[in-house]
Structure formats: structure tokens, C-alpha cells
């Protein structure tokens, strides 16, 4: 069954690229160009997977990730980070933002560093969505 994959990414070219890959593996791409629009689409469309960029204007990926994981109704949606920022840096930022007290922020499902090969991304998506 075709699943909904939300890509939150400010670079239009990458949005085109990701949505092409999503379509190639038989799923439905949903696009958002920043964190604000991203959260709207999450609540509105209820995607099965979120591909999230980090460096974005308006609301950065860091903030959006934190919002997703602090909301019990959204926390379980698998998130794949796709960013130029290194994984280590991202995780450090989450620790800094934590409101969970003793609980640590759950790590994303996968962390892919840009640039990503089409095969690597489609393989990862398939793994998570099946």
C-alpha cells in the first residue's frame, strides 16, 4: 500500500529529488518548505514517515524534531534526518533542548548526511516503510 512520506526541506531542488525517489519506490510524497509548514502538514496529513532537513529558515529542523518527539500523538512517526549537519552535532543540540528531565530524547530512525545517493535513500525508506 502506498504510504505518505513527508519531506520538510527548504531547498526546492532537494524536494524534487526526494519526491522523485519516494514515487519511484511506490509511495506518496508530501512537501513542506520549512518547519512551520512541516508541522501543519504533519497534523493535517498524518504521514507514515518524515524526512527532515535541519538548516531551514523560520523553524529549523532541530526545533521541529523536538516538537515531534514531545508530542505523544506524533512521537511514534519514524523520522529520517537528511542534513548537511553531522549526526553528532544534531544529537548534542537535542540534549540541550531537552524538557524530558530524566528521559532522553529518542534518536531519529536514521540519520543521513547530505549529499545522499538515490539508492541509499530509497533503500533506507524501504527498510523503514515495510
Amino acid at each position, binding site marked *: 500500500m502506498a504510504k505518505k512520506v513527508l519531506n520538510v526541506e527548504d531547498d*526546492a*531542488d*532537494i524536494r524534487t*529529488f526526494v519526491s522523485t525517489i519516494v514515487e*519511484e519506490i511506490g509511495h506518496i510524497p508530501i512537501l513542506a518548505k520549512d518547519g512551520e509548514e512541516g508541522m501543519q502538514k504533519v497534523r493535517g496529513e498524518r504521514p507514515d514517515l518524515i524526512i527532515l532537513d535541519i538548516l531551514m*529558515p523560520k*523553524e529549523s529542523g532541530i526545533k521541529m524534531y523536538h516538537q515531534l518527539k514531545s508530542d505523544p500523538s506524533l512521537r511514534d512517526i519514524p523520522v529520517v534526518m537528511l542534513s*548537511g549537519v553531522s549526526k553528532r552535532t544534531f544529537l548534542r543540540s537535542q540534549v540541550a533542548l531537552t524538557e524530558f528531565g530524566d528521559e532522553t530524547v529518542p534518536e531519529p530512525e536514521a540519520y543521513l548526511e547530505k549529499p545522499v545517493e538515490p539508492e541509499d535513500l530509497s533503500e533506507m525508506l524501504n527498510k523503514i516503510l515495510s
Partner: protein
Amino acid sequence: MLTLSLSSDGYEVLTAPGGEEGIETFKGESPSIVLTDIKMPGTDGIEVLKRIKDLNPDAEVIMITGHGDMDLAVEALKLDASDFLNKPIKDDALSVALKRAEQRIAIKNKLKSYTDDLENMVQIATEEVKRRSEFQNKLITTSNDAIIATDEKGTVVIYNQGAEKIFGYARSEIIRKVNIEYLYPQELVSQFAAGLEKGGQVDLSEWREVSIVPRDGETVPARFSGSILYGEDEVVGSVGFFQDLREIKRLQEELIRSERLAATGQTVASLAHYIKNILNGLKGGTYVLNVALDRNNTDKIKDGWAMIERNVERISGLVLDLLAYSKERKPEPENCFPNEIVEEVCALMDGRAREHDIRIVRKSGPWIGEAFMDPRAIHRSLLNLVSNAIDACIFDSTAKKRWLVTVKTAMEKDHMIRFEVADNGIGMDNKTKENLFSSPFSTKGERGTGLGLLVTQKIVKENGGVVTVESKLGKGTSFTILLPYREAQKKATIGG
């Protein structure tokens, strides 16, 4: 008898029976005092006196006179005899005469030694004066700086090698022939004229930059300091020092160039990053295009191709910026319409602006028509500024602002045109503002190369203009470029 008297007084005595013998003895022994009879057979006293004085003008000759020899005595005195004694010679008279003779000898000796000393000291002093004068001359002639001194009327009296190098005229053309009003740059002439006239009230001593128009060749930038010269109470002349700044300016420019080169080195890392992103965009584009061709999906073909085109455009922009940044470019002015160039730039950026809900507003000054300026310089500088202005709005996270980028042109006095690019986006803090033009500095992460503003500033400077910025964090930013322009050149018409 006389001999006895003299010996007992401690003198060494030599005797001679007559004039000739006396002279011979004198030649041989060189006594300091001579006693001679005035009246003698053969060579008489007067003759002895003359001949002895010939041999030694300083010898003290005392004439011994007899009764009736008064005329002879007077003649002897005229011939520089020291004294005379009348016969019969009394002991005390003899003593006195001898004492006086000795005193005279002593005085003569002292005088001689004083004179020798004096001559020696004068020679030393003269050499010292010569040495100092030569030293000062050397200072003036070999000084690299131009040293020009004038008399109270302003006629040049000192014009050294340094001046020849800066002003181009040979010394022979200038010294005592030319007044500084024909030589000095205009701005100084009036001040010097006032100084020479009024003295006291004109201070020229502070170093300042002037432009010298030499005999041939290009204007020379120089540093100038001067003084009015006084002797007693009146003005006696003036002096001016000019330092050739060409070398210093050349070194400054070299320094800037090498700093820029070094900065380009720093930029290499961020450039590599930027280029990597572009390459990924190209790779992504080719992937999408290939999938689209496989599926025969025309829309997707368009998407893929657009990705490739956009990234090719980004590479092109990057290369242009790099070239503009690293090379010295002489402005190439031509007849153009600044307002049209502004419209071109805005049209290029309209698409991207609209994607992000930003409006670009043009406010073209009505009096700006055709002008003689470098259109590519204007285009490139404005393009960078408008692109930055759009980014500033994109990066502003304030909710629901109506984002505006305004591009304005206006005439300014002194033949300048003002280009203003203002946005109401994120604005800058003081730290960002300070570092703006100093080195590749980008707040745009992977997207910025940091070169845009540097290139703009360089281009504007090369065209004789200036860039300034105003910004308030959270409120917006405004960049202003002032560029000089010339009247549109009339095309020559051939024939009549």
C-alpha cells in the same frame, strides 16, 4: 765695562768691534737684544739696525747715542729701533732699557702664541662649520622627500633631488626662477601666500595628503608638511616637505591584494562546500531527469532539467564572483541607463522573491537618464545586494510580516548616483555589521560563499564609489551605494 755690567745681570754677552762684525755675530748667534753704537766708522749703527731688522724684524735693537746724535736717534726710531741710551751709560738706565726690551719680547711672544692658537681654533671651527654645512647639504640632496624652500616672496631657493623626482622639473628650471604659486598644488598655494604675507597665523605643519601634478605623467599622491620661516621678527621664507606616497600606496594595495588572496584561501573550504552542494544539485537533477525519461513523464522531465539549469546558473554566478573578487578590474564605462539596469536585476530576482512571498519594489529616481558608467559593475553589485536582501527576509522568523525589498535610485550632488537596497528582514547585530566587509563571512551556512558583499564592495571601490550599511536586528537592513557618473558621451559626428 758694559760687558761686565751685563754679565752680572745674568745676560750672556757677545761683543763685536764694529758694524760688519756685529752683523756677522748676529747672523751666527741670533741674540734677542742688540746694543749698538750709532756712530761708527765703516758700517754705522743705522746700517746695522737696518740689516739686523732685515734678518729678524723682531730683534730688539737699542741704539747707543752720543751728544748731538738726536737726528740719528730719531731716524733709528723710525727704523724700528727699540730704544736709545745716551752716553755715558748709567747702570740703571741700561737696566731699564733692557727690561723694557725684554717686556716687548715677552709681549711679542705671547701675541704670537695667541695668534697661533687663534688661527688653529679658527681652522677647527671652520672645518666644523664646513662639515656641518656639508652634512646638511647631504641631508637635503639625498633626502628622498622633496625639500623646497623659498624666500619671503615665494621664489624657490632650495629644490632638492627629491623634489626633482616628485615634481619632474630639473633644478635648473626652478631655482630662483619659479614662484611656488606655479609649482605647488592649488590647495597649498593660497595658504602659503597667506603665510608669507601675514606670518604667524598660518599653520602648515600638520601632515596632510595632497595631489601633485608633475611636469609629465600621472598625478602623484604625496604627504605634505611645511613652515613659514622667520628671522628676528619678519618672514624670511618658507619650507615645504613632500613625501612621495606612490610606493606606500603601492605597498598598501599589494597588502590588500595579498590579504584578499589569503582570504580566498580561507574561502576554499567554504567554496568547496558550496561547490559540493551545486554538484549534488546536478546529480539530483540528472537522477530525476533519467527517471522522468524512463517514465516518459514530461512534467518530471521539466523538473529535472530545471534543477540542472539552476545549478549551472549557480556555478556561473560563483565563478563570476570569484573572478571579480580576485582580479583587479578596470572599470569599463559606457553610455547606459542606470534605472534600466535596476529593472533588469529586479526582474532576475522576482521569481525567487515570489517563491518566498517577498515583494520587490522599484523606486527609480526620475532625473536619472543616460549616464556614462560601467553597467556590469552596477548590475553585479546590485544583484548581490538584492539577493542578500531576499535572503534576509527568508531567514526572518517573525510571523506574518509583509516582506519588502525596495530598490531605489536617486541623484546626489557632486555628480553621484545613490543606489539603495533596503529590506525589512532579519537585520544584523553589531558583530555581523562590523565583520561585513572584512573577510568572507556568511550567516547563510552552506548557502553562502561569503563573497557577495566583498565583491560588491570591491567593484564599487574600483569605480570610485562607496558602500555603506544601516541595520537593526529584527527590523531590517539598508545598503547604500554611491557611484560617480559622467554625462553620457556624445557620439562624434563625421562630416558636416
